[in-house]
């Protein structure tokens, strides 16, 4: 006992505190008995303080849970965007090698290329849309041009009531008119807050129509007295992207001087393939969907890149880099850049193809400079750890990137054009090329041609745009490649300061990142992030916000949160829902990397006990998944009595719904992990969006993909798989069905079903 420890034992203190509190109340209650009515003021106060104290602590604990949930969502989101990187480098690979797949199937490869722009003239196209018939029975809004307030009101009403979709004809006409209008706009729009007008600035909407309607409700519809700037990312993820762009474009045409749209990184047809907009369009417009999507490609690429208010406030979707040059940006032909994931091509005509075919069979004599600037940037990604299943792509790419001058320095790139890189390799085939420059894919031709050089001006323009649409601010000084996103930069306070000074600007308003409160300031208040999609990750995850800016250029923030259920959920309930959803996502991610994770756990588990310490568990997960997990992701696993983690338990609550017997477990895991990428590629192959691709196409795509990733998949296994999925033996595969097989079911979900 008398060991000098100053720590009172728990039970002692608890006891004495309890006694004290009891005594207090006991004595007071006695008095209360004497005066049956109002408690004495002192007593009421004590009771009130007690309750308040307790309640505030309860709320603090909910807040902590909310933050943990948030960090899980964010980690997963950014890790998901790394996958995007994989896909884009695959596309580059495809583009670079398309001629040599000619032996196998020219169509397959040409389908990855941008469809050549329709030679039809604008007037002819307008006439073509005019001819589309709208049945008399169609109850939805009917548009005619020029638009009037009656049209926008009708659209808002129809969408609010969730009735009819706008008829395809009107969609096409609207997009056609929008395209015509956008063509006339410069890359950077200049606005002024004259006449004491306040401008309202909104951030990402991501298909959340309810948020847009809520903003209009709180802040009024766009009009000459009520100008708006929407800062990109109108589509993807949410379910009402189509409605949002219809409304935004309609107001754009109606109030051309008071409605302004900036392009976001999701106004990009390849992003749309992955994140849901393409699917939404095809589902809502079965006959005309493809045409609408084609037209949208043009419209998106014609959206302005930036807006400047009073020459003082710069508004862009992502951010800036240390190379951002607003004057240069103003001079670019922005419509050439359809997607951030496909670098611009000089021309799509056959003469270039001819050249390529002619040089077939030659070993690479020179390597072109970094004309595929996307890959150059991406190959500098040091975050792609070798343990992610591909055989050390990062080690080869990081060694390459160190031998290539950083893509930032464009002047070096010009010199690069005429020289080989130090190790003779094409700088961009950072994965699948052996030193001789010969591809390892079996059925491809054995030689590789280096595609002709593209002038570095295009590369520079490319970088300028991608930086604007994809960058994120960071807290430390400097400017580094944005490895999480796979595009753009992380820019520090010094970069911001330099830029603002250079153009005599006061602040930068950007979006691109979800913030819990809907907005956030950084870089000493000079950078504002504004995000307008509330409940972005999950019901209750975050608020949305918008900014009002008057002539004083002092921003005022307005927050809101859309609530789905009619009965308002308590904060506690909302946090629980969000938490459950975050943990589910996390569990799925663990499942997708099961074998690597188990290997990592086993390394820590030296005595083969089946348990590891919590910190070892967290380290293993972090290294395999490249996720930064909060410590409290513990509900995912079972703890042994001594507090250590039974690591196999985190895989327990998931199983595949319809296992395909022909598929080996390791193949299952691989297919599960890459299912999103496969879905995108299949969707690209499936030109008529019928949901079917041929067996041959399936086989080839899979082989290419797996060889590119150096994933060891037995080709025979893929053949078997392909044959077995072709259920009706007609030579085509319903890939949605195929992918369905790799959907995992959570234990709790299936419990609920029974």
């Amino acid at each position, binding site marked *: 006992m008398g060991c000098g420890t100053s720590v009172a034992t728990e039970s002692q203190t608890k006891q004495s505190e309890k006694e004290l509190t009891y005594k207090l*109340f006991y004595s007071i209650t006695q008095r209360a008995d004497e005066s049956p009515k109002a408690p004495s003021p002192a007593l009421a106060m004590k009771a009130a303080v007690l309750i308040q*104290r*307790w309640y505030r*602590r309860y709320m603090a604990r909910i807040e*902590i849970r909310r933050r943990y949930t948030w960090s899980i969502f964010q980690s997963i989101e950014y890790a998901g965007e790394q996958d995007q990187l994989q896909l884009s480098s695959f596309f580059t690979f495809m583009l670079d090698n398309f001629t040599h797949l000619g032996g196998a199937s020219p169509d397959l490869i040409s389908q990855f290329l941008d469809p050549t722009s329709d030679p039809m003239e604008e007037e002819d196209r307008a006439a073509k849309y005019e001819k589309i018939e709208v049945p008399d029975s169609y109850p939805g809004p009917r548009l005619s041009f020029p638009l009037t307030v009656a049209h926008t009101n009708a659209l808002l009403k129809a969408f609010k009531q969730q009735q009819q979709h706008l008829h395809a004809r009107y969609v096409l006409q609207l997009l056609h008119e929008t395209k015509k209008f956008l063509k006339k706009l410069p890359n950077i729009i200049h606005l002024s807050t004259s006449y004491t007008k306040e401008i309202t600035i909104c951030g990402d909407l991501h298909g959340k129509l309810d948020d847009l309607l809520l903003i209009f409700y709180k802040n009024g519809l766009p009009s000459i007295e009520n100008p708006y700037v929407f800062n990109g990312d109108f589509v993807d993820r949410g379910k009402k992207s189509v409605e949002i762009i219809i409304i935004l474009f309609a107001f754009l045409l109606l109030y051309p001087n008071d409605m302004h749209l900036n392009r976001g990184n999701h106004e990009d047809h390849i992003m749309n393939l992955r994140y849901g907009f393409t699917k939404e369009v095809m589902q809502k417009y079965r006959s005309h969907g493809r045409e609408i999507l084609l037209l949208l490609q043009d419209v998106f690429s014609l959206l302005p890149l930036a807006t400047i208010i009073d020459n003082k406030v710069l508004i862009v979707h992502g951010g800036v880099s240390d190379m951002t040059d607003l004057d240069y940006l103003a001079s670019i032909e922005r419509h050439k850049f359809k997607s951030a994931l496909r670098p611009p091509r000089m021309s799509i005509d056959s003469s270039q193809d001819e050249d390529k075919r002619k040089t077939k069979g030659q070993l690479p004599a020179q390597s072109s400079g970094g004309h595929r600037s996307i890959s150059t940037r991406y190959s500098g990604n040091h975050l792609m750890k070798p343990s992610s299943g591909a055989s050390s792509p990062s080690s080869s790419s990081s060694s390459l990137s160190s031998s290539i001058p950083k893509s930032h320095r464009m002047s070096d790139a010009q010199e690069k054009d005429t020289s080989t890189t130090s190790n003779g390799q094409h700088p961009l085939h950072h994965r699948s090329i052996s030193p001789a420059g010969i591809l390892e894919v079996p059925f491809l031709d054995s030689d590789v041609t280096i595609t002709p050089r593209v002038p570095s001006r295009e590369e520079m323009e490319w970088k300028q745009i991608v930086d604007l649409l994809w960058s994120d601010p960071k807290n430390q000084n400097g400017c580094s490649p944005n490895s999480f996103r796979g595009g753009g930069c992380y820019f520090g306070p010094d970069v911001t300061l330099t830029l603002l000074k250079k153009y005599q600007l006061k602040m930068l308003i950007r979006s691109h990142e979800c913030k819990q409160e809907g907005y956030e300031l950084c870089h000493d208040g000079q950078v504002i992030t504004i995000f307008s999609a509330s409940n972005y990750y999950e019901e209750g995850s975050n608020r949305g916000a918008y900014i009002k800016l008057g002539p004083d250029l002092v921003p005022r923030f307005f927050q809101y949160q859309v609530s789905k259920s009619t009965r*308002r959920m308590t904060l506690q309930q909302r946090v629980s829902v969000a938490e459950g959803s975050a943990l589910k996502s996390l569990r799925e991610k663990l499942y997708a990397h099961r074998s690597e994770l188990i290997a990592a756990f086993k390394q820590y588990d030296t005595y083969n006990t089946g348990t590891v310490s919590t910190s070892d568990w967290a380290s293993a997960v972090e290294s395999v998944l490249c996720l930064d997990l909060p410590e409290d992701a513990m509900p995912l696993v079972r703890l042994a009595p001594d507090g250590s983690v039974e690591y196999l338990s985190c895989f327990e609550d998931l199983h595949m719904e319809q296992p395909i017997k022909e598929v080996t477990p390791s193949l299952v895991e691989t297919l599960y992990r890459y299912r999103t990428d496969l879905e995108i590629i299949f969707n690209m192959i499936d030109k008529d969006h019928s949901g079917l691709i041929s067996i041959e196409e399936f086989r080839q795509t899979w082989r290419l993909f797996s060889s590119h990733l150096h994933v060891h998949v037995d080709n025979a296994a893929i053949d078997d798989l392909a044959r077995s999925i072709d259920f009706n033996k007609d030579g085509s595969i319903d890939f949605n069905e195929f992918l369905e097989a790799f959907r995992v079911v959570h234990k709790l979900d299936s419990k609920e079903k029974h």
Partner: protein
Amino acid sequence: MAEEKESAEAMISEIHKQITDAFDVFDHEFNKTVDVREVGTIIRSLSCCPSEGELHDLLAEIEEEEPTGYIRFEKFLPTMTKVLMERRYRPIPEDVLLQAFEVLDQEKKGHLEPEELTKYMSEEGEPFTQEEMEEMLSAAVDPDKNVILYKDYVGMMTVEDN
């Protein structure tokens, strides 16, 4: 003797870890500082249940001489370690909480009207903000009877809290 010392050391290092983890959640800039307005949440997340007044006193110990709006970890750790070691501001047991509600229920009805609770919470003690009041009512008021059945409420909250 040595064992007890060892376990005391282990306890301290465990406490240090808890404090560090909680602090890091709010350290957005990764420079071992947090916004002073979040300190209340951090402290409460460490199983402490101080009143606002007690929190204020605690802050005075942790803040810089010239308040900067930020709290540094170097000051936070020792103060919080002492708090946790001394088991200050322990959470309130369920039965004591229930008694507090009973005190406010003057007429011993077994429930409280929303107006009653609002009056006490917003005017007495360390008053709630409007937001806090609304949030509490949304969870506490029984939707059918439109009263606060405080016995059920306390029971439910303490279960969820664990």
